[in-house]
């Protein structure tokens, strides 16, 4: 009976224990492949500030410390940012790569620093016009992994897009500037994976 109990204890412990690779730092810091969270951006349309907040969904795959992801977001759009002269909707699809650069913790739980970059395209719809344009992003952030089933990630990226004149934006009183050939904006994503 004693021998049986010891064997049961050993068997239970064997399954509960992470494989040796984790202790030696070889196992990747996996998080669940689906992220749902908040999206925010700041950009310019025809030299006028534009942006808004919405919902972001990301699906990713992982190899080692590298992740490849696809993402989609739908958000409110305010053109003329602070005056919100016109409002509408924006939707963005993107794909990119993420490198888990540092980890305080191990493969099961911890606090990670990541660096990411990608490309995408955003469609903007406002009362007097619409526009679709490609963009590129580069940024970094951190994620908190509670365990293998739950994590929180937050990051900020620079959003590079080509802005141009001649957009049908009616915005009285908006501050504006000549459109930049490559307009630098911001893209923010914070979400949960589980």
């Amino acid at each position, binding site marked *: 009976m*004693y021998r049986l*109990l*010891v064997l049961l*204890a*050993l068997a239970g*412990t064997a399954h*509960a*224990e*992470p494989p*040796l690779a*984790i*202790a030696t*730092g070889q196992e990747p810091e996996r998080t669940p492949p689906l992220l749902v969270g908040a999206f925010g951006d700041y950009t310019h349309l025809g*030299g*006028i*500030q534009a942006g808004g907040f919405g919902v972001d969904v990301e699906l990713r795959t992982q190899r080692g410390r590298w992740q490849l992801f696809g993402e989609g977001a739908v958000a409110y759009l305010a053109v003329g940012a*602070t005056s919100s002269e016109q409002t509408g909707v924006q939707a963005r699809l993107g794909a990119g790569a993420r490198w888990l*650069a*540092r*980890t*305080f*913790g*191990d493969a*099961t*739980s*911890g*606090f990670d*620093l990541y*660096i990411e970059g990608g490309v995408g395209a955003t469609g903007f719809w406002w009362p007097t016009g619409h526009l679709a344009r490609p963009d590129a992003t*580069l*940024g*970094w*952030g*951190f994620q908190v992994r509670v365990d293998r089933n739950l994590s929180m990630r937050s990051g*900020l990226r*620079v959003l590079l897009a080509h802005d141009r004149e001649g957009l049908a934006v009616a915005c009285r009183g*908006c*501050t*504006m*500037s*000549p459109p*930049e050939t490559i307009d*630098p904006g*911001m893209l923010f994503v914070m979400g949960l994976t589980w």
Partner: protein
Amino acid sequence: MRVALVLVLLAGVAHADEWSIDDPGDGPTLRDRAGATMLGLRIGIGREPLAGDRRTVVTDGLQLSAALGAGFRVAGELDLAFLFGDEHAAMDTRGFGVRGGLALRHGIAHTRLFYADAEAGIAAIVGHDSRLGALARPEAFAGLRVGYDMTASHSRSRIFEAAFDFRLVETADGLGWIAGVGMGWGS
């Protein structure tokens, strides 16, 4: 009894490989040990003069630092810098650039968990501004950095720190300031 002994032994083995935060000692932490390197991120926001104007400056950057010994650390900084003009201006003035900098830090206080560093350095923003065109703005800065650090056993990065900083920024156009919050991972 034998089972109990085996289970206790197994429990000890089981915890030996899991990462855990170390009890902070009274002396310098691993972060201050010569050769220790830290990679981290920092977000800053401040107000700085630029060509007769004042801008709200937002930076989002990475920092790589190394301990030199005797309480000194050197840090290289690479930031994405956004320079927003005031909204009341008729023209939307805005700039964007890459900021590179070098900072020298020295520990001035340390408790079991918290620390304070004095820091000074030089940097430059190179980019484009909607009002000025090409932008190349050097600066010198000095400030205070307050944070906490911790070390962990069986962790991939053995050191973690979080810090708040405040800097005075001297430019050719006058004096400004920037406050930041950052985190670092080290080994």
